[in-house]
């Protein structure tokens, strides 16, 4: 009985930790509102139809979650091994983008297969957006954040899942704001990109007022 209780407690702690990191990534460390990652694609997605948003959001979620353990493995296994073979003039930091990009491409291949379970219409749309989602700054930024913060594999997956959800959440929040920003009361020079940026800034300010700290770059 005591052994079972300890295992249950560990599982419970793990679940709580997973959820807490995920919530942290959704709100406090939102990739869009707190770090300005993926803003360009977000601005393009905001005026789109809801289905088109999911065409991009689902592949982003898949690739982000699948690349998280690969990024953890690269940070904790590949780089320590590789550091011994690199010349002095080549710092290991110079190789981070190409390694994490490779993790993302590998995750993209797996996601391409997993998207096959979706209905045909959704599958076609998602696969057409898969390469763009992989090349998003949100995915590479999330991998880099996880490595900078030395997250465990579970924390990395939770953070990546929360980042993906947070990105889609930000898209829909900004989308609702843009719908209201179509008012003619807004000056014409602020229509479009400027009003969207200011609106995201106000949302970001609300997040900071809620969290009350500065994010770690």
């Amino acid at each position, binding site marked *: 009985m005591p052994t079972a209780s300890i295992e249950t407690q560990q599982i419970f702690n793990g679940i709580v930790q997973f959820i807490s990191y995920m919530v942290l990534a959704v709100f406090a460390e939102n990739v869009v*509102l707190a*770090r*300005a*990652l*993926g*803003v*360009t*694609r977000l*601005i*393009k997605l905001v*005026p*789109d139809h809801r289905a*088109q948003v999911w065409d991009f959001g689902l592949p982003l979620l898949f690739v982000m979650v699948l690349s998280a353990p690969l990024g953890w493995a690269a940070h904790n296994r590949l780089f320590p091994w590789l550091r011994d073979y690199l010349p002095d003039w*080549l*710092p290991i*930091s*110079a*190789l*981070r*983008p*190409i390694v*994490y*990009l490779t993790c993302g*491409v590998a995750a993209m291949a797996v996601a391409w297969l997993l998207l096959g379970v979706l209905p045909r219409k959704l599958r076609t749309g998602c696969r*057409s*957006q898969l*390469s*763009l989602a*992989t*090349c*998003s*700054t949100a995915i*590479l*930024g999330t991998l*880099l*954040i996880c490595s*900078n913060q030395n997250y465990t594999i579970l924390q990395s997956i939770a953070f990546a899942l929360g980042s993906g959800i947070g990105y889609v959440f930000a898209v829909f929040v900004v989308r609702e704001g*843009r719908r209201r920003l*179509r008012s003619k009361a807004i*000056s*014409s*020079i*602020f*229509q*479009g*990109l*400027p*009003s*969207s*940026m*200011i609106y995201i*800034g*106000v949302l*970001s*300010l609300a*997040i*900071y007022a809620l969290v009350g700290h500065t*994010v*770690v*770059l």
Partner: protein
Amino acid sequence: MPMQQNPNNRRRGEERNETLIIPHITKEMVETARRMAERGASRAEIEQAIAAMQAGKTPTEAESAAQKKPIVQPQAAAAPARNTAAHSDTVIIPTSRPRYTSAERRAMLEEVQRRQAEREAERQKLAREEESHFRTYRDREYGTNPPPRAAKSLADKPQPDATKSRTIRTSKPAADATRTVQVPQSELRAAAQKAAPAPQPVQPVQTTQQFIPESAQAPQIVPQTQPKPAVPAPEAAPKRRGPVGMPRTYAEAEAVLNERIRADHIWLSNPVLVRGLGMAPVIGAALDGQRALMLCIAALILVTFTRVLAVAVCHLTKNRFRPVVYCYSAALLYIPTYILLYRLFGTDLSLLGIYLPIMVVEPAIVKRMEFADLEPVKDAFRHGFNNALGMCIVLLIVGCLRELLATGAVFGNVILHNALLPLAALPAGGFVIVGILAAVWCAAANLYTDYKHEEVRRLYADRKH
């Protein structure tokens, strides 16, 4: 002269005979009056002579009687000297209006006609000079870049659907889909249709990727009013081009202008403030001048040479696997860039955090992968360098502005002793500052593009077809 009776003097109820006095004027009286008038006689003299003839005198007697009894004394002092020799002293010469002979009148008429002809010739000469100046300016401004390639490239790129084509802010159908500068979409489409009779099929990936602007923006944006007959039908308008490749029609000039606006990656189509690319390093990392400078050098190398390398590789791979080619080109170029920056800035490079590595997938660098048309390597270098310059300008402006607002200093040099807006150091402040900067930038760019479109419309007003 016989007086006509006033009908108002008629007494009521009284019947009386009304006598209508018809003046008896014969042909001799008319000849006499004409002859006297040619001599310069006054009206009173002529009337006196006619009255004498009606009384029964001969024309000669009447003329002599009228000339012997002048009604008005001549005023020799006020009379012009030119008529004194021609007329006798009995001729009444009015002082209010000089009398001219027919020869003088003819001479005056010829003089007036000559002056009018001179004025007309001068006006036509000025008009020709002005027209020549306009043509020279027009050919210099709009005749250097031949538009067919631009229009063809526009036609090759995916077009927004018909329901969203009313929005003006998307000047370029897909490549510059996020731009906010007003360029008429219809003009682009007309020029593209005219220059590219057989547009290439659109790939489905690009169709789903294109920026779809909000329809609500359309009524708030002043559309470019264009003359209706300016854009002829594609089949009805043959390609009439000058010997040096200058545009011959209004539509061609508009296409050239739109291409020039689209190709101006520094100001009019700035990748950051107009097209919304590369926001992450500008908002997240350009917190002060030093970080902005580091990002500038990185962007200058990565944006320029990634495009060149990727285009060169795409030429080898027949333009396939573009996302992988572009991202890995940037990732490979990141290695020497990082080494260079590390030698220049040392450990300060860590201030940029994740924003330096993520530049390899920045849309400002890899945006080109979304388009199927493959540009030459030379054009890739030019476009990449211009994009990098545009991004560098915005990075420096935003970095210095945020440092000034947040700390009161620029590149560490204290200018203000109090922080005006500490929020500028946070990403939230970055969003707001970039938004306001984009509004001002786009307003200025729109003013300029409107002016240029109006200029083209006026310069090519005489060439509707």
